């Protein structure tokens, strides 16, 4: 199985509609420990992305992902804009010139995503951020491939690891971003960034493994 350009577009559209459906939920999570705008900002950004997709030509996956990244950077604001913008820009760099994704291409994209978000946000696993979902998802995808799993199976394991990572943020004390000013009071709440990152990987698994 490979993932052609059209299915990458399909994943972006699916992520956009998942964000729209969960706009209030993400905002609620953010209100508890941040400034209460994560759902609103991500929804605005992904709607801007959908607008850009309409006029996009060619079948370069890397170019597509870079366009998504640049659009998020200029439309989301706050910390979410640079973090998700960098994530997609780095995924785009890792997949430049590809018209379809092999499993190894997606692994490289996930490496780019993790490295980009860590470079931008300087967060480690356990800081109660997006990284708590992204790193386990990347690791699970790579080890699934090493085990000889199919692309579809590896995507599903990756999404499962992201979900566990997201849930692991609940008891954590935030060490980055505005939530960190709450100290101990940030424990007991699921991180909104880890939650949207889980949605990103879940929609990839659903769109691609279902269609394969």
């Amino acid at each position, binding site marked *: 199985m490979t993932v052609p350009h059209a299915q990458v577009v399909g994943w972006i559209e699916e992520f956009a509609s998942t964000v729209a459906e969960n706009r209030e939920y993400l905002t609620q999570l953010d209100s508890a420990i941040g400034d209460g705008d994560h759902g609103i900002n991500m929804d605005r950004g992904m709607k801007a992305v959908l607008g850009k997709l309409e006029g996009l030509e060619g079948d370069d996956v890397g170019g597509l992902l870079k366009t998504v990244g640049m659009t998020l950077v200029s439309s989301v*604001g706050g910390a979410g*804009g640079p973090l998700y913008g960098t994530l997609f820009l780095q995924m785009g760099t890792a997949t430049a010139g590809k018209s379809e994704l092999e499993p190894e291409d997606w692994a490289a994209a996930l490496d780019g995503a993790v490295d980009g978000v860590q470079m931008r946000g300087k967060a480690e696993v356990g800081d109660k951020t997006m990284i708590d979902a992204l790193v386990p998802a990347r690791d699970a995808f790579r080890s699934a491939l090493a085990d000889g799993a199919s692309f579809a199976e590896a995507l599903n394991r990756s999404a499962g690891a992201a979900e566990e990572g997201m849930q692991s943020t609940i008891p954590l004390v935030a060490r980055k971003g505005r939530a960190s000013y709450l100290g101990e009071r940030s424990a007991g709440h699921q991180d909104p960034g880890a939650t949207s990152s889980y949605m990103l990987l879940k929609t990839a698994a659903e769109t691609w493994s279902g269609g394969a």
Partner: protein
Amino acid sequence: MKKLINKPDDVVTEALQGMAAAHPDLLRVSFGPNYIVRADAPVQGKVALVSGGGSGHEPMHGGFVGMGMLDAACPGDVFTSPTPDQMIEATKAVDGGAGVVHIVKNYTGDVMNFEMAAELARGEGIEVEAVVIDDDVAVQDSLYTAGRRGVGTTVLAEKICGAAAEEKQSLQQVAELCRRVNVNGRSMGMALTSCIVPAAGTPTFQLGEDEIEIGIGIHGEPGRERRKLAPASEIVESLATPVVEDLPYEEGDQVLAFVNGMGGTPAIELYIVYNELHKLLEERGIKIARNLIGSYITSLEMAGTSITLLKLDDELTRLWDAPVRTPGLRWGA
């Protein structure tokens, strides 16, 4: 919500239109993406200073665009960081070939957006140095948080570095100077009331009729403690003491004392605050060599004050005294 606005969504745009209409001799405003540049930008051969942040802190930053201070300011939505497309356009518009300094207040969103803008600008061949201001002593546990917030020292850094840039100091010199101002500046603020973000329509936080928040951030972030209203003398002591002891400022030091209004506090009260601060510093043998009193870094209509001290040396004093001509700060020109 009682505000002098037309529509909540139009607040930032219409305020920028007002600035453009009021100050064509000092600045120009661009829309989509939004940024303000000084009227004569780019000034060839001069290091350019770009700052920015959420709106709602006026006159910072747009009101400090002009000769002797900022070359450009990027206003975000109210209390929301601007985006890199604004910063890169502003950076390109003011680059006079000598490089650009980004003055960034330490908030996670602001820092990341300015970092991306700096990378993009460098990609286009513009030299950029970023300096992060983090002077708020109210944040104590900075090892386990996003660090101290950038507050009052930002205004002083923009003025002093603007003067250095006018003297045609180099990019490295201006950036180093900015870091020196940050290292020698400390602030702490308090609120008597909350503020209302226009798009939200309700107060950002709740304070009882007889309560105050000590150590408040400029977006209403929680401070060190909430306590009962007290006389100005006690409030000033609880702001100034942690500021003085943090650097620390010591007997014989010369300082610039900046008493800032949060937006809803009248000048008569700021002078009472200054009077108390003056007495407190005098008792410690710290000499106020320069001062600034007024509402320069605000939180919409929040009532309250912040105190900033900057330890001065001859160079900083000379650059503070140099001419400046902006909507918000003007002397000697």
